[in-house]
């Protein structure tokens, strides 16, 4: 039993897809950074997003201040946590076989989720700040999603500018292109790894703070975002930073359009079928592999 799909409906879900996609892009950019620089797949990426969401929740709950301002707290906090994790554990597996980094970050993720459960319980929380939408003709634009979208686009553009223009950004890109050459050119690779992990965690935290005002918060919420980020960087080409941006938007659109034309049940399957197809046909990603 379905309904006839009208252009207005397509417009509505395309908007939803882009709004969600921008968040995916930003979060996935973090995962791409870590993979690009260290060749480590960080399974704990979504977990850090979850911690960012809790930071926003407590900020709003205890202080009652605009939850978007909590970005100023969650991002630096998670930058520090990320840097700490890198320095204390992850750096040991940088050159180890991939399975080691998977296992390690998986372990970190389980530990952090359980500590969160212990500290904050598994009760579902939410930040009721801006609900409802702007109505534009037949379209409804969710206020909280629009604002989160704007922040995500802003932060992602800033991250790109940082990677392109600053000395540290250039060093990060150099390291992800070739660690040896970067080292020969005098880049302190250890330090770059630390910054990259911190930045990536800050991006995840920003994602957490921004989804906190949209969806319910609970200790296991991060997992989906790890999977989605992974999907995005495979679609975009692992280690390809602009690819992550496009991949995120593409994933948002694919999810929404397949939910509309097919059903919500299969939309996830569609995304993963796409993943398999990309791996089979264009293993370097839809938008080319990492530049060498």
């Amino acid at each position: 039993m379905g309904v006839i799909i009208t252009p207005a409906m397509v417009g509505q879900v395309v908007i939803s897809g882009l709004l969600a996609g921008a968040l995916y892009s930003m979060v996935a950019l973090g995962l791409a950074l870590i993979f690009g620089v260290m060749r480590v797949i960080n399974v704990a990426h979504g977990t850090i997003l979850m911690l960012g969401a809790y930071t926003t929740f407590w900020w709003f709950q205890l202080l009652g201040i605009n939850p978007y301002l909590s970005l100023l707290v969650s991002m630096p906090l998670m930058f520090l946590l990320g840097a700490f994790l890198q320095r204390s554990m992850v750096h040991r597996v940088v050159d180890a076989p991939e399975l080691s980094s998977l296992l390690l970050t998986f372990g970190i993720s389980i530990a952090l989720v359980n500590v969160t459960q212990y500290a904050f319980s598994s009760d579902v929380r939410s930040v009721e700040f801006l609900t409802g939408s702007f109505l534009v003709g037949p379209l409804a634009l969710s206020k909280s999603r629009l604002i989160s979208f704007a922040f995500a686009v802003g932060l992602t553009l800033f991250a790109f500018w940082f990677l392109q223009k600053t000395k540290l950004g250039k060093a990060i890109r150099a390291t992800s292109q070739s660690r040896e050459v970067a080292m020969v050119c005098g880049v302190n690779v250890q330090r770059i790894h630390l910054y990259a992990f911190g930045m990536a965690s800050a991006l995840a935290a920003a994602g957490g703070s921004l989804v906190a005002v949209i969806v319910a918060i609970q200790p296991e919420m991060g997992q989906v975002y790890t999977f989605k980020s992974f999907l995005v960087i495979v679609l975009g080409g692992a280690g390809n930073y602009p690819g992550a941006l496009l991949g995120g938007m593409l994933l948002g659109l694919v999810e929404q359009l397949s939910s509309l034309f097919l059903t919500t049940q299969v939309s996830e399957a569609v995304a993963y079928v796409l993943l398999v197809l990309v791996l089979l046909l264009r293993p370097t990603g839809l938008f080319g592999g990492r530049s060498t």
Partner: protein
Amino acid sequence: MRTAFRSVTGLATALVVLAGSWTPASAQAPIKIGASLSLTGTYAALGQNQHRGYQLCAKHVNEKGGVLGRKIEFVLYDDQSQPATGVRLYEKLITQDKVDLVMGPYSSAITEAVANVNEKYKMPMVAPMASTTSIFKKGRKFIFMVQSAAEVYLEGLVEMAAKRGLKTIAIINEDTLFPKATVQGTIELAKKNGLQVVFVEAYPKGNPDFSAILTKIRAANPDVLGAATYFDDAVAITRQMKELNVNPKMYGVTVGGDLPTFYQLLGKNAEFVYGATQWEVELPYPGAKEFLQAYTMEFPGRDLSYHSAGGYGGCQVLVEAIKRAGSLDGEKIREAVLKLDINTVYGGFKVDEGGFQISHKMVTFQWQEGKKVIVWPDELAAGKALFPTPPWTRR
């Protein structure tokens, strides 16, 4: 030595049995009722609530002199929320502890597993906390259902809508066993009440984004939206309905909508939402007030939920059946249960030939000013439904 011990205990037992037949009724050994409950593990909180219901029931029955002149006593084990453990424990209860009767465990899953054990020994089991229809449709003869089935969770919503002249309904559900059964039942109920089902779609468990499905619903423009939910999805759907400006005249959810957290999370946006529940504290069932008082006295500060009332009510059913059967014989008690048509603190009890519940009513409430106001069925309603639900833009 061991043989000697055995023959001594054997002799002692024989003596007790013989003595039993001579002593006055009150001095007889208690009737032993066995059960396993989820006191630890995933279902611990709910299993413990049910446990307190059993305990309180036994206390009350014994205060009134017991049944058949004997006191009742629960032999209880912890199944750790595991169906396999439950099966082992019911075997032990029946074969080693030699209990006279059994009561059900917590949850459909564990009930389904242990139902084969009591069936094998032809021992009647009143199962208060299983509402999956299929358990009672497998030709089993010794299991009896106490609460309403998944299929009728949205009965109140559908009937109220039909009464108010609404014509169309959309139904969405989480794609798992229980909500699926609710959808099947709701489609039937809608047909029966002359509502046209204009949209049906399932979504996967854990789905956080309902934009597309709600966009389709907005296009289908149904008078009524029924969602067969658990909890997270009930919250997310309500929130996103506001975001996408979806405005049915009535909107109801199933599981999760009755929890206080539902309102805490959604605040004002939960207003006007209908929900379904097996039992509420303020329902005017016979003995419910006394149950509530006794419960808070006996277990101060402990959680009280429909699981507690269900445990108590299920135990009431069994005791009544023993009384009417006048015996502890399994077949006779079965006959008696099948003939029962009574009200417990948990609501009506009457089962069909297969042990399937046909009298217990789900009640429908509506969130009004932060409170759950029971609005259906009429004879239990505490207030009037606020109808129609105003569009989001005018709240």
